[in-house]
């Protein structure tokens, strides 16, 4: 006998989606249902819970194939709008990474640098249909004699353009403060001296991996909302680390799981892939991701009922501790506290600011919900799981 009172399979849920009968809720809508009716009733009622996050995700990038020209070329160095791309692949394959700044960027020479244009912006411009200047150098071979190439390309011209990001969708992240005596400029935004502000970076109760904390429903092959189109989870991301301390509800209390994702750039829309310039730090790409969580049983329903009050993260000093590899927490705060305007650190009230857009995360969860309701989106069956907590 099953240990669950409710059991469903992904195939059964997909059948219900195709029949237009599936009940879909956003992770926000699921909270009061689970709290009021309990996980069993919620699991009976709901088939899929949609999540969302929209935030700068530095480990993002795209593989591009720019097609051969005559005479043929084996490009060894390539720039897109002046941004270097990795060309150590086959003849006309490159990878453009989100944080690569334009080669002539003054970086932090004029501190704090502005980092106006980088790989993330190239990706956004391509997705927006704009022309991008491609420049390539080569050493010349018998089969690929050309030594240089310069041409304008658009996303439509490129034979292939695939977003492949080695680490997106971090399951929880630090709340950053700065205990030094000067303002610092970090990937967690501008941090004013003496804990002048606290910045945090996930969408909390709406965030994909907060709603499936042990990665029980997702894996390689899970279909997701990625950059405004349908993409896939292709495995755990780099730095995936499930073995961290967790709440009784299973949610990690610090950065934990990550996802590697891919999708066809040609189907994506610029609203959900936006190049960003982080003052004093560098360029990046804000990526919109939404993961549908199939409610396979009451345990999963219970996970998706998690609210900001039950999700915690650690307050970390970026003034001294983080750059020196010191692991120290200045307190544990809930996302409800972070979203309430301010937190208390060392007895002092510190205003909290998000770097991740909650309202846009909600829009992603709602879009995914609509896609499923309109039968445009079927759940992908995971072929290989994301590694969970060791020994579980």
């Amino acid at each position: 006998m099953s240990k669950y009172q409710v059991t469903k399979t992904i195939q059964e849920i997909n059948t219900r989606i195709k029949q237009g009968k599936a009940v879909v809720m956003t992770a926000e809508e699921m909270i009061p249902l689970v709290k009021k009716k309990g996980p069993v009733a919620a699991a009976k009622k709901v088939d899929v819970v949609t999540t969302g996050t929209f935030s700068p995700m530095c480990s993002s990038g795209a593989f591009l194939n720019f097609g051969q020209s005559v005479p043929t070329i084996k490009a060894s160095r390539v720039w897109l709008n002046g941004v270097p791309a990795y060309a150590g692949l086959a003849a006309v394959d490159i990878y453009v990474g989100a944080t690569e700044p334009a080669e002539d960027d003054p970086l932090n020479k004029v501190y704090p640098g502005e980092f106006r244009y980088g790989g993330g912006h190239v990706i956004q411009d391509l997705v927006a249909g704009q022309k991008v200047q491609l420049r390539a150098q080569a050493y010349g071979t018998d089969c690929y004699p050309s030594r240089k190439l310069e041409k304008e390309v658009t996303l439509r011209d490129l034979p292939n353009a695939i977003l492949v990001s080695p680490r997106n969708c971090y399951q929880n992240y630090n709340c950053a403060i700065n205990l030094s005596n000067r303002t610092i400029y970090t990937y967690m935004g501008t941090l004013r001296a003496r804990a002048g502000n606290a910045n945090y970076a996930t969408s909390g109760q709406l965030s994909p991996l907060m709603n499936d904390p042990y990665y029980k429903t997702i894996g390689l092959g899970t279909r997701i909302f990625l950059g405004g189109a349908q993409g896939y989870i292709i495995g755990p991301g780099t730095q995936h680390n499930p073995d961290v301390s967790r709440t009784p509800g299973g949610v990690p209390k610090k950065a934990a799981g990550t996802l590697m994702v891919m999708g066809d750039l040609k189907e994506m829309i610029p609203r959900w892939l936006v190049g960003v310039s982080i003052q004093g730090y560098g360029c990046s790409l804000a990526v919109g991701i939404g993961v549908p969580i199939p409610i396979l049983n009451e345990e999963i329903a219970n996970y998706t009922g998690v609210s900001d009050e039950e999700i915690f993260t650690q307050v970390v000093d970026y003034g001294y501790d983080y750059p020196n590899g010191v692991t120290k927490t200045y307190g544990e705060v809930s996302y409800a506290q972070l979203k309430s305007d301010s937190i208390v650190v060392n007895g002092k009230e510190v205003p909290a600011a998000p770097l991740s857009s909650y309202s846009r995360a909600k829009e992603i969860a709602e879009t995914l919900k609509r896609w499923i309701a309109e039968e445009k989106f079927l759940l992908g069956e995971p072929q290989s799981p994301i590694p969970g907590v060791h020994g579980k």
Partner: protein
Amino acid sequence: MYSRMLVLRFPQDIVDRPIVCNLVREFDLSFNILKATILPGQDGLMIMELSGHRKNFNRGIKFLEECGVKIKTIGQDINRNMDKCLQCGACTAVCPTGALYIRRPEMEVCFEPEKCSGCELCVAACPVRAMEVHLRNASGF
């Protein structure tokens, strides 16, 4: 008590005259200068919060205009490009006056131009450069 954040532009022919001090002396107003670029022979720019009795405030403004000062409320020179804004909230961490703030529980990023002091900290802190500030004086620095 009436209070407004103002952008004053001084044409170059009046920058050598004492003007704003008269707001205190003649009109019983108080001000807080947040930014001033006044150099000889060039158009000048000043951002100030001007406060006092409503009637005196209006008389003070009239006096400034009669002196040749061009006056705008600060909101007219600052714009949030809503096509670019990601609604993230990074700007709210650096805004010293609370002009940029988050409306809860929707977590919508809001901008109240009347509260803005024109410090421009948000301009570079915004990851997509959605804040557009035009607080430059005519000579362009």
